[in-house]
């Protein structure tokens, strides 16, 4: 499940997905813009440890060396969360000032778990 919303008056947007072994598209960066992830929160209410990956899916532009570039989806962030009162949070300082998303921000988990919610706070520049 994916939900998105704009936070009023801040310019930030949030995307929420639940842990899934298949790729979940959290948000798509509009043409002519760059996405900057400011924070990632993993709220794991299931009993087991969950490992979450954040990926960026894009196809590079044709360059002088590569006439037909292959699609890319590098993993940008990996975190594990156990059931706890305090969810796992990575803010700007832990993310090195923010993670740049060039194409589509995707999320995968090591299991399907509707009670493990990943919240991504981002902005577009």
């Amino acid at each position: 499940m994916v939900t998105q919303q704009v936070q009023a008056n801040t310019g930030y947007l949030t995307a929420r997905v639940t842990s899934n072994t298949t790729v979940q598209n959290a948000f798509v960066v509009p043409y002519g813009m760059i996405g900057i992830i400011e924070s990632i929160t993993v709220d794991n209410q299931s009993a087991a440890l969950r490992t979450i990956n954040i990926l960026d899916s894009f196809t590079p532009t044709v360059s002088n060396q590569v006439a037909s570039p292959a699609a890319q989806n590098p993993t940008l962030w990996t975190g594990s969360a156990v059931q706890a009162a305090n969810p796992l949070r990575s803010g700007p300082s832990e993310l090195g000032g923010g993670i740049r998303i060039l194409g589509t921000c995707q999320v995968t988990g090591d299991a399907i778990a509707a009670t493990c919610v990943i919240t991504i706070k981002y902005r577009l520049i």
Partner: protein
Amino acid sequence: MLEIQLKPMIRQASFTVPGLKVGQYVTFSAAWPTELGITPGRTYQVMMEQMVRAPREFIVPAMGSNNDYVEVNLSNESGGQLLYPTSGGFLHEIFIAFKPYAGFAQMFSPSDQILMRMPSTAEVYTIGTARLRVLGAIFPEQSTEDDPRIRLMAVYRMVSVFIRLHVLGTPSTPTTAAFDKSVIVFMVNRLALRPIANPTPEQLPPPQGRGLYIPYLDEVTFRMSPSSLGVAA
């Protein structure tokens, strides 16, 4: 004409792109070629103007050991960005701005001739040499959308101008260091021109008047011989 301005120490709080306006006068230098839909040396008045924002994005591989780059043709040639006028009597004042990315740009026209260079043949952009690959380079923070500092004057069938995009890496996310996205925001001021047969001194460029003098690309990049520019040996 190509103009790259340095940023002032104190910047005015202005977010208006300073384009030419209706009623203003422009005079093309005599060095412009004759087949481009304008008459070299003639003065024109701006009759209509429309500013069009045209962002373009490119996901550029890091240079790496292959010296990778992405080349962007601004002209109306096949594969170009179609930013030039499509008929004579029009002038496109193209402001070029960048969103932040981990790299720099170089400008060429035509594709094998760098625009910003030193006179010595040893001081020319060379991608394989760390010092020379940034010679004359334009970094994104030098020309931003709220303060564009690069202006290119383009007319019908003008020689193609190319922007070559290089990426050094993405320090904040080491796992994606192989690519970064370069967004170029072109702000194209479309101008319709009316020729002025006998311009008054006021309509001419300085020092006589207040019109804008538009030199040809070869003049501003020192590619014309000193004698043709009237420079004494």
